[in-house]
């Protein structure tokens, strides 16, 4: 897909603001100058802007596809170095934040009775200015925000300096405290380096949830899937099951808190490539294989296998992170991982400090606690809380904020922190405002407004500038920053600076000392409560987005609400059943959790989504200042009552049913129906002339991340059903990630959508021709002809059809988030995946104008486009040079329920017994 072919940029003439001019009319002028796509482009033309996703700190590049002056779809920017076209489900769904009904629409001030009352921007800002002036009398002003980089970080420092505001370290739940501390100890670099997994041939991840929330999930997904191409061998060791774990060739469960023992064993038993100083080695306890087994629970065979693989590998790479560095043993784990990287010669290439993530301004919760203690004694004047969805991790912070003379919240939702605020300033969404993000050293990407703000919101930068009474507006400020860097913010979507290789030297003495001091002999007492990374909600900040709640968690298949996932054995021992609402001792809080009993989960580990950590006050690790995400010795309290979980999976056992590409059951002596081979019939399967649209999905590459699902929802205007409907199994998703238990991996993920059958059982039974087989091989669905007999759905063996039980709800302004190319289905009609027929039509029209047929890769479906690991290809099966043809005719190809003779157009690829040992 050639982006340049269709990308159109906003032409914005910098509207110089009279320094004195009020902010309101500054806004006016700025956005008058923004072009209004409605006028410049016909309504049926897509307007595409390049910008950067800010839903999480990863900073992926996105293309904003707009129609009629409103963005309706986000897609990964194929040129962006981080994601190269992929985009995770949070990114896809982030439009749901922009159009959220509960978004703050105007400045609010706390009324006498404590309720929120509207207030004008000028009044609000004047109040702040006055408060700042008053605070000169000895009281301290503080500014706390979530991770801030690039121009805004710059401006914040200036703001702090000019208005005597202390800028507190940025608050992030994922602060990578242990890693940064460890690298500081080892090499004097308090940083999160870049891990180039794509260049490794052996990857050993210890708790690092590469695909959920660790540093940059989309990039990792792409790199790992590239790695698989050249047979990357991947060992993943973790205490509790994660989506990442299910994808590793070898997924090994170890006892929570025993990671340092395993790494120590590995360090001692593997041949070092570049030998470590004796002093350091002495600090590492000698661990025999028996001890290692006893501590970690990893069998000697597995241990030996791991060591063997490590020694055999040319470029082994070990990454510690996630829950494994978020407990008392976190620092030694991180240290040992660093030492292994050093000894395997990975530092400097595979582990690259040159492209280290920019976490300069981010503090650990631990650091913040110290600051709070110090602030608690002082009297706080103005307290700014910017872009924060929680203060819970930092004990006492809420109180400090509450006690301040004036607490100002810069936010888009009434997140819990706003309870401490006196004044709320609604900040524009990143699609409504300028800015930039320095994700890692050497890469800054532009945040560029795609359209005029929906509500009376202002960019954080403009607020600061106004308070500073500085000339020019935020856009100019950003532009100046870029000019200084010799770039043009109008033209360039991102700026890559050459990075200098960083020379590192292992600091033996501090390493040895710190290892010795931080070494914790005892592992956590089981059962352990672990806060699993959430691919849906990151650290909880994304939970406000309704779409993300609608899409089930890939592991548990639970959509709405929290659930405590436990293994079947635990359920038996604790004598609880699925749906029981229980108390968890460790949390102490009055929170109760419905139990999800899951056969694939590990014994003696209870896992809870990370989003819950955003509300619970978790303990903090003294060594690293990081949140503790593994709590030992928990007990399940009393069962309060029973709840119906919104589990969207009827059953995870598909053995012998021919759904998964594993052995299809056939009675003895009956040979399986061999793929691609057309069986004898009483009448032939329809032929196709020019096109037979088809899809191929590589299950080895599919991580289960559900980005495709989110993409499909947004692209096709699929309505949100909500929890009550989900309990009745009435979800509307056109594509779903089906989790299956299958000896091969802990969980197999299988994206299933309408299979566009050649002999579609659904078509014949429709009395009114509302669905039929079109000449391109699509199983067309004519919404306005459908009378809603639901016969087609009954007769679809893939259950890919969705019925509109009610009229879909789109609370204003969500009604703006509608793809005008796709009709919104009324109540009572059937709907389903159409292979994004609107895109097909667009491409065919375009081809027709140029009087040719559609070229391979000229366009693709929303799901395929969004897939971070490139597991889905779409195209014309009749074109023998097409990618999909190659995939569909490769080895180990399989179609679901092939024995039924429906001749589906969706092909699934999977190596048999990938990862010889499967999940241990």
């Amino acid at each position, binding site marked *: 897909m050639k982006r340049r072919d269709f990308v159109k940029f906003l032409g914005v003439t910098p509207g110089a603001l009279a320094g004195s001019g009020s902010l309101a009319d500054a806004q006016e002028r700025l956005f008058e100058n923004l072009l209004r796509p409605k006028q410049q482009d016909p309504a049926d033309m897509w307007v595409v802007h390049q910008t950067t996703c800010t839903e999480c700190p990863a900073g992926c590049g996105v293309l904003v596809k707009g129609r009629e002056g409103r963005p309706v779809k986000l897609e990964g920017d194929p040129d962006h170095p981080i994601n190269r076209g992929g985009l995770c489900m949070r990114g896809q769904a982030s439009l749901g934040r922009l159009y959220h009904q509960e978004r703050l629409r105007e400045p609010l001030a706390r009324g006498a009775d404590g309720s929120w009352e509207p207030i004008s921007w000028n009044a609000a800002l004047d109040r702040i200015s006055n408060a700042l002036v008053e605070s000169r009398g000895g009281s301290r002003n503080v500014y706390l925000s979530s991770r801030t980089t690039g121009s805004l970080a710059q401006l914040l420092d200036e703001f702090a300096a000019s208005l005597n505001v202390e800028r507190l370290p940025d608050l992030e739940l994922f602060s990578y405290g242990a890693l940064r501390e460890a690298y500081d100890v080892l090499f004097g670099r308090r940083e999160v380096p870049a891990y180039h997994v794509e260049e490794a041939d052996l990857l050993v991840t210890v708790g690092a949830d590469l695909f959920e929330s660790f540093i940059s999930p989309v990039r990792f997904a792409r790199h790992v899937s590239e790695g698989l191409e050249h047979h990357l061998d991947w060992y993943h060791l973790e205490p509790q099951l994660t989506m990442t774990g299910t994808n590793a060739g070898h997924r090994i469960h170890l006892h929570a808190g025993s990671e340092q023992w395993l790494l120590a064993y590995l360090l001692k038993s593997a041949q070092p490539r570049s030998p470590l100083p004796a002093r350091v080695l002495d600090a590492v306890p000698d661990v025999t294989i028996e001890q290692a087994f006893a501590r970690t629970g990893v069998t000697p065979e597995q241990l030996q296998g791991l060591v063997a693989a490590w020694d055999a590998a040319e470029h082994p790479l070990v990454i510690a992170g996630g829950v494994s560095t978020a407990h008392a043993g976190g620092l030694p784990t991180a240290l040992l991982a660093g030492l292994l990287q050093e000894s395997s010669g990975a530092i400097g290439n595979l582990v690259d400090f040159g492209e280290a993530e920019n976490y300069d301004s981010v503090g650990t919760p631990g650091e913040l606690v110290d600051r709070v203690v110090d602030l608690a004694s002082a009297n706080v004047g103005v307290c700014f809380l910017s872009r924060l969805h929680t203060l819970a991790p930092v004990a006492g912070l809420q109180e400090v904020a509450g006690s301040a003379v004036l607490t100002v919240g810069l936010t888009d939702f009434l997140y819990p922190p706003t309870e401490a605020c006196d004044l709320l300033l609604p900040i524009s969404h990143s699609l409504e405002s300028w800015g930039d993000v320095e994700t890692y050293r050497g890469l800054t990407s532009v945040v560029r407004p795609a359209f005029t703000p929906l509500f009376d919101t202002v960019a954080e930068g403009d607020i600061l500038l106004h308070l500073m009474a500085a000339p020019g507006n935020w856009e100019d400020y950003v532009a100046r920053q870029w000019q200084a860097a010799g770039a043009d913010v109008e033209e360039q979507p991102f700026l890559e600076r050459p990075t200098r290789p960083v020379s590192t030297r292992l600091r033996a003495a501090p390493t040895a000392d710190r290892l010795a001091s931080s070494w914790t002999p005892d592992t956590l007492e089981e059962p352990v409560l672990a806060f699993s990374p959430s691919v849906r909600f990151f650290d909880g900040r994304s939970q406000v987005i309704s779409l993300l709640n609608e899409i089930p968690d890939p592991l548990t298949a639970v959509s709405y609400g929290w659930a405590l996932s436990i293994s079947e054995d635990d359920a038996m021992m604790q004598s609880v059943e699925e749906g029981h609402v229980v108390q968890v001792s460790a949390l102490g809080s009055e929170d109760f959790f419905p139990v999800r009993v899951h056969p694939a989960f590990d014994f003696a580990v209870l896992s809870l989504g990370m989003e819950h950590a955003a509300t619970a006050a978790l303990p903090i690790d003294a060594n690293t200042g990081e949140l503790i995400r593994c709590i030992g010795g928990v007990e399940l309290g009393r069962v309060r009552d029973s709840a119906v979980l919104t589990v969207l999976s009827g059953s995870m056992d598909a053995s012998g049913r021919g759904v998964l590409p594993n052995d299809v059951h056939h009675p003895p002596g009956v040979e399986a129906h061999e793929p691609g081979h057309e069986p004898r019939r009483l009448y*032939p*399967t329809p032929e196709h002339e020019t096109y037979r649209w088809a899809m191929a999905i590589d299950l080895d590459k599919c991580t289960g991340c559900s980005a495709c699902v989110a993409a499909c929802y947004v692209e096709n205007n699929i309505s949100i059903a909500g929890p009550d409907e989900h309990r009745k199994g009435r979800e509307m998703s056109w594509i779903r990630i089906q989790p299956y238990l299958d000896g091969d991996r802990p969980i197999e993920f299988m994206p299933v959508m309408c299979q566009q059958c*050649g002999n579609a059982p*659904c*078509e*014949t039974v429709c009395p009114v*021709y509302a*669905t039929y*087989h079109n000449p391109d091989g699509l199983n067309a669905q004519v919404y306005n002809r459908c009378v809603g007999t639901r016969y087609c759905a009954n007769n679809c063996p893939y259950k890919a059809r969705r019925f509109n039980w009610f009229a879909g709800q789109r609370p204003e302004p969500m009604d703006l988030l509608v793809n005008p190319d796709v009709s919104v289905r009324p109540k009572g009609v059937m709907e389903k995946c159409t292979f994004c027929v609107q895109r097909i039509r667009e491409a065919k029209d375009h081809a027709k104008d140029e009087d040719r047929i559609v070229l391979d890769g000229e366009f693709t479906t929303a799901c395929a486009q969004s897939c971070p690991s490139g597991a889905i290809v779409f195209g014309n099966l009749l074109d023998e040079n097409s990618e999909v043809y190659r995939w569909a005719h490769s080895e180990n190809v399989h179609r679901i329920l092939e024995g039924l003779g429906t001749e589906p157009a969706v092909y699934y690829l999977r190596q048999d017994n990938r990862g010889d040992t499967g999940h241990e």
Partner: protein
Amino acid sequence: MSDTNRRWEFEDEHEFLEKLKELVDQGTPTERLDVITPIPVPATEEILKMKRSPLRFFTLAGALTGLSLGFAFTIFTVMDWPIITGGKPLVSLPPFLIIAFALTILLGSLASFAGFLILGKMPSISKIQNPIEHENMFIIMLEDEAAQ
């Protein structure tokens, strides 16, 4: 008195039949004889030498029309706008047979009913206005020549 407009009533079927036979044997023209019975009496048909009802031809005609119409109709529609569903042939005779069957029965019965009304000269306004009640008697009526 002459044999015109005579009317005999019997309580008993057999007496009635005997009288009827007698009349016919006497050479009374059968077309001048009419009988009214509360229940069907097949014997009268033989005595009066009535021809078998031609109703069956209505039935046959109706049924055949239905059959052919059923196929013609279904085949015409799929040809008129050929739409492939489920990989079935456009002209799917097995399903169409079901439609044809239904129409065969439908038109067959309607035609028979129509035939009944036509042959039995019903509904008959005059008989509706002043009907003849048999009052559970077996009645023989002899019309005079004038009535012919």
